[in-house]
């Protein structure tokens, strides 16, 4: 029971991160109908920029509560701006000229961009994994079991609290943007029918650019959290995390932001429980198998609408 509870906490934490990345996939897929293969790498860049900012600011675990919080807010801000600049450029350079062209061209272009980002970071920062001492330390013991079958303590670390709270705040902000503002309305109308939206005077290029920027900002936060949570990052983390987050987006119903979050949580929980109870080596297989199963049996996702084949 205690073990289960611990895994549940870990799963929700990981799932929050996947969910934040998934929102970027789901928004982009919803609006221009393509998988932004470079999105996982933008997430990776967000993590790297956070790492660099943290080292540059000289924050360590011993800096004290308020300095750390202040510094992290600054780091998040920087990472968001830089990642947004990346994703904006990716869209401008690799996707916009190919919009509406032959279907495979944007796909190749997107994967090409993904390779470019990975290789750029690998060359600029060398290929080695970058470990960092934990910054957000400490936590609470929620439950502990005495020594009969070996002691086991359920921990909720401050890091996990930070991740979950940040995710909730961001979710609230983004849901508000999508449902309440004219920008969100423009995005939803482009999702429905881009041509019509353009005829009604919506600047499609701007709307799409903003969608990419929003997705990148969330991915950057996820990148920071992922890096802080695992204490290490490298240029290749974006590939796997990206595929898992895309799975989450599809599972939740592509185009749906709450769906992406739910999908992220499910994927995070599956991965953590699979590692805990079955085998940690095959945790990626579990995630991939999940992806295949979802696409095959539930292609519309949990919160998506089923598609009727038009004849």
């Amino acid at each position: 029971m205690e073990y289960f509870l611990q895994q549940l906490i870990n799963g929700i934490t990981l799932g929050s991160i996947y969910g934040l990345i998934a929102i970027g996939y789901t928004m982009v897929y919803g609006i221009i109908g393509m998988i932004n293969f470079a999105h996982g790498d933008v997430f990776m860049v967000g993590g790297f920029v956070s790492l660099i900012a943290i080292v540059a600011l000289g924050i360590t675990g011993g800096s004290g509560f308020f300095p750390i919080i202040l510094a992290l807010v600054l780091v998040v801000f920087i990472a968001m701006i830089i990642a947004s600049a990346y994703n904006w450029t990716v869209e401008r350079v690799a996707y916009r000229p190919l919009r509406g062209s032959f279907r495979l061209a944007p796909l190749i272009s997107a994967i090409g961009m993904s390779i470019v980002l990975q290789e750029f970071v690998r060359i600029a920062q060398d290929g080695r994994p970058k470990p960092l001492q934990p910054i957000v330390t400490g936590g609470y013991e929620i439950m502990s079991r005495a020594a009969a079958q070996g002691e086991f303590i359920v921990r909720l670390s401050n890091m996990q609290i930070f991740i979950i709270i940040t995710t909730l705040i961001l979710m609230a902000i983004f849901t508000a943007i999508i449902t309440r503002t004219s920008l969100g309305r423009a995005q939803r109308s482009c999702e429905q029918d881009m041509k019509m939206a353009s005829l009604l005077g919506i600047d499609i290029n701007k709307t799409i650019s903003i969608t990419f920027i929003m997705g990148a900002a969330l991915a950057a936060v996820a990148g920071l959290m992922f890096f802080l949570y695992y204490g290490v990052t490298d240029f290749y983390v974006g590939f796997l995390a990206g595929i898992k987050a895309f799975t989450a987006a599809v599972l939740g119903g592509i185009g749906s932001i709450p769906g992406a979050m739910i999908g992220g949580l499910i994927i995070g929980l599956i991965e953590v429980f699979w590692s805990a109870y079955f085998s940690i080596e095959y945790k990626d297989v579990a995630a991939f198998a999940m992806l295949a199963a979802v696409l095959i049996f539930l292609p519309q996702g949990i919160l998506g609408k089923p598609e009727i084949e038009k004849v």
Partner: protein
Amino acid sequence: MAIVPKSNDVMTETQPLNIAAIAKDVLFTAILAFLILGPILGLKTFAITGSLALEQRWGMVSVFVAIVAGGRLAYHLLVWNKPQAKPARAISMPTLPVMSFGKYIIPVVLLVAIFLPFLPGVDRRIVDLAILILTYIMLGWGLNIVVGLAGLLDLGYVAFYAVGAYAYALLATIYLPAWFGDGIVPWAFFITLPIAGILAALWGVILGFPVLRLRGDYLAIVTLAFGEIVRVVLINWSDFTGGPAGIGGIPRPSFFGLPFTDGEGGFAAFFGLDFKPIHRIIFLYYVILVLALFTNFVTMRLRRLPVGRAWEALREDEIACRSLGINTTSTKLTAFAIGAMFAGFAGSFFATRQGFVSPESFVFLESFIILAIVVLGGLGSQIGVVIAAIVIIGSFEVFRELNFLKAVMPAGFDPVQYRMLAVGAALVLIMRWKPRGFVTRREPSVILKEKKAIPTDLVAEGHG
């Protein structure tokens, strides 16, 4: 990352040289370049005892930012503001005249391919490169069946390549000797080749079956996932596959039983030649040449058979196919299976050439390179695959030749490090330039009176 983003707004108001707008745009580009390059390039992290430190490289950043901004400015002045402004985005460039010259090019290429090892100036390195390119041509032709003809987007094609390679590695090192004794080993390649093909085809059907209903990007991502599953299993199922270390000591092919060794009973002794290691390389070259030509021959035949026409029809319109009584399930599965079979053959060849297989050779990047060859060549075009394979694989090798750059550039500069970066960027640019690939003509599979090539603008890209 010296890619210059184009701005449409500036492009439209070109006629009088609008200096303010250009300055604004160039400044914006510079800021953007600084944001992108600054942190990652300018602040290099490196490990010092238990922590990380930063190395500052602002000089390098400013050079690159200046290059990007300067490039943008040059673009403004030289391209977008040219007196006779032609459309800046030249998507519809003239097509390569491959089809019209095709009649002469193909026999010439074929002749060169056949006599390549004996041409003057051709050394071992070139034959090795030719073997590599031919392997990718064969893989490209195999994938062309799935993606180019049937229109099914497969991002996990390398899995079948892996199945073929591991099938050969395991059979030749463990199972065949155990079953039939060591005497079988020189023949292992020829025995295993068909088995590897059949196994890969079987896997093609197994992986193909669940994904039949999927379309487009979903199919792509699921096949990608399957490819990764195969790789993760290869890494972790150590008892069977040797785990991350892979399988070594794979027997080299023999000349139909004659091993390429020095001394009695070897190939050189049998034919009364002086022993040279290159004999084996040349033999390998002809093996892959024959395999590749076989792939091409089969594909060309299949295109003229009902199954091949059904593949192309499937790519054009699946619903119409069903209304004409075509079993789309079995049609798709045959495409998967036959495509996979050729990857299995190629995998076997790869294993015998390397003498060693490990999961590292079967990463997603390989699948992507093969797909890029097919798309770049022009979907469904056989000659396009040849051109694209030479361009892509050849350009990888060109980076090995750039050693003179080491003299010019700062110390520690290794051009080989940059080859994936350059190829990734090149693919993005080529897709902008020619989204349909190099060869943009489709040849009809049956003719009533006269042959007319079909522009691929009309050809659908498939839904699956």
